[in-house]
């Protein structure tokens, strides 16, 4: 047992103490998350939106989804190449395949040129790929547009939050108090008043001032290079139309073989979370017209340029080198694992990393920043219950990945001392309680 191991164990214990202290940010998030995750859990059984429950929907399509994801993973090079070719040749998109996150960051910085303000939609991929960090490092202003992320920015909230509703843990009262403090405007503590405020003050800016916008992609179809983006607020519609340049940054595992596969994934993302997309954009190139004597001109009313940065980084390596986290390649980004997770439900945003809540966030931190980061994030809080696997629509076994990372942590001397004692007794005395 190394000193570092003891230090990290005590750090996690101290973080747990923080979640138990009333009024701390971690405690507030934890209280919210217990309610929210339980509600999300229960919604799986309800039939209030459609004839079938979300659980029934997932079970109906599970085998199809898994087969489709496996087909993609086994032929990843083929589908990535096919997708890039059709995007470039048929869709007039500028496409890059970045081998590493760093390469993607460099391409992104070159593409934004002299622009000092980037408007972005919610994107967990941008965090994974390090785009947010590089923008901050270069003093480029990031303007969030999803209301949840706008609120996170308003509060300057640094802790991890729920990817689907990143600002949902702020109370109405806290929000209006913060708006008064920052903008000097007094609002009634009502959701409708808060929405009205941003509609009246921010919508104009989004319609008129956006030069470069950044989105991820919910999913991309390899057969026709179509990017699918789903949303409710309309911010993505504005960012992809009322802009000069729309930049899409995402991992190559967002690609699926066909457009029908893409629609199924999008439908799954909504059904499993019991939400519906008000808008689904199928983006297959920049805005254009051929209305002047049939001559095609790019950049009519919508984006003049669509730039796609597809990022490999850990993905091909995971597959070809049989990395312990390769199951993550199947992930469709629905976030169900966040609220199905025992540890996440109990510990909220201290069982997490800057890449997101739960085991998914911790595994990504491990991939990018190594074993110490994962232990600090609460690796050993995972019970290995595999609820993530059972609830996942494509059966990704995060529990098994966490177990492998725990073994690596033990090798590095980072296992919590009481567990090490049990291990030693089992191996030497053949009984953990002797």
């Amino acid at each position: 047992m190394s000193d570092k191991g003891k230090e990290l164990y005590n750090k996690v214990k101290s973080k747990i103490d923080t979640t138990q202290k009333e009024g701390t940010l971690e405690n507030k998030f934890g209280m919210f998350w217990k309610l929210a995750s339980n509600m999300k859990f229960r919604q799986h059984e309800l039939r209030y939106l459609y004839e079938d429950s979300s659980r029934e929907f997932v079970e109906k399509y599970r085998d199809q989804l898994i087969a489709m994801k496996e087909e993609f993973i086994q032929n990843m090079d083929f589908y990535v190449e096919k997708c890039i070719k059709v995007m470039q040749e048929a869709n007039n998109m500028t496409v890059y395949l970045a081998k590493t996150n760093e390469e993607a960051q460099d391409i992104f910085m070159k593409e934004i040129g002299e622009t000092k303000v980037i408007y972005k939609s919610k994107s967990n991929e941008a965090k994974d790929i390090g785009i947010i960090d590089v923008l901050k490092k270069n003093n480029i202003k990031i303007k969030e547009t999803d209301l949840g992320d706008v609120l996170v920015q308003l509060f300057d909230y640094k802790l991890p939050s729920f990817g689907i509703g990143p600002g949902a843990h702020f109370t109405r009262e806290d929000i209006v108090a913060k708006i008064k403090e920052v903008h000097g405007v007094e609002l009634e503590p009502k959701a409708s008043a808060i929405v009205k405020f941003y509609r009246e003050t921010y919508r104009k800016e989004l319609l008129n001032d956006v030069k470069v916008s950044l989105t991820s992609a919910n999913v991309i179809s390899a057969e026709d290079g179509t990017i699918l983006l789903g949303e409710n607020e309309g911010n993505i519609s504005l960012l992809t139309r009322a802009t000069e340049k729309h930049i899409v940054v995402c991992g190559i595992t967002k690609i699926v073989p066909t457009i029908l596969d893409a629609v199924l994934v999008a439908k799954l993302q909504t059904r499993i979370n019991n939400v519906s997309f008000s808008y689904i954009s199928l983006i297959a190139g920049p805005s254009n017209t051929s209305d002047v004597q049939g001559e095609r001109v790019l950049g009519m009313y919508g984006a003049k340029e669509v730039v796609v940065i597809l990022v490999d980084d850990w993905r091909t390596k995971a597959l070809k080198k049989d990395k312990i986290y390769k199951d993550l390649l199947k992930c469709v980004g629905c976030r169900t694992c966040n609220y199905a997770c025992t540890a996440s439900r109990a510990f909220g945003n201290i069982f997490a990393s800057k890449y997101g809540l739960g085991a998914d966030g911790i595994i990504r931190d491990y991939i990018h920043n190594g074993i110490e980061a994962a232990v600090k994030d609460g690796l050993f809080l995972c019970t290995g219950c595999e609820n993530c696997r059972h609830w996942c629509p494509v059966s990704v076994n995060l529990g098994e990945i966490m177990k492998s990372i725990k073994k690596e942590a033990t090798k590095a001397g980072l296992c919590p001392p009481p567990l090490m004692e049990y291990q030693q007794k089992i191996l030497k005395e053949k009984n953990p309680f002797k």
Partner: protein
Amino acid sequence: MSKLIYLGCLSTRLYDSTCKNAIKIIQFLDSEYQVIEDPPCCGSLAFNMTSDDVMKKHVEFVNDWFKANKITELVTICAGCYSYFTRYYKEFLDSEFTVKIQHFLQFLAEPENLHKLNLKYSGNNLKVNYHDACHLRNSSVPVIEEPRIILNSIDNIELIESVYNKTKSICCGAGGGVYSIFKENSDYNAKTIFDNMKKGKALLTACPFCYTALNRIRDENNIKKPVIKFEDFIVKLIEGVDPIS
């Protein structure tokens, strides 16, 4: 001897009367089953943190112990032992591991055993919940239907399914050795399991880890509904005692 009752380290250490009850039931059904003093631990608490090469040596040691004692079949009352024997011993040892593994619930649910036990409840309709332990539902041969078969076979006992059950059950927070380092996990999750019982009057479990976590939460939160180990429940039925007393 060839048939072993494998009680598991946790039950042996903490739950002596449950061990005695399990032995009583198993030997009533098949007198060839015997207990051997001080068997080696299956290693379940170490699997999550020990490298495969080190773990394999332990697994080989346990398998050699089985061979030395000529064990061909075993019944365990520990969900953790069952999970690791069926899932990981096969992975490590492949055809070298030949012991037939059964969990107590599988053994009990065999038609001839249920027939021989002839379980009855003389009281009025008793509603009970069964908690699906992760170790049992996740193992390579999942134990999910067996407790339901057993409970549904008993007159006047009504199984109430919890809001989340079978493969979607909520973990008690004790798995992976987490109970020994961060009990706070079970503070929330074990409480949620009680909240999801609906009309059940008692919570049955076949996992000593779950029992430990659930019973602590019951005590700390003054929850009236008792947590009962499956073996104790069955013995009380056999003896005609109120099974949830």
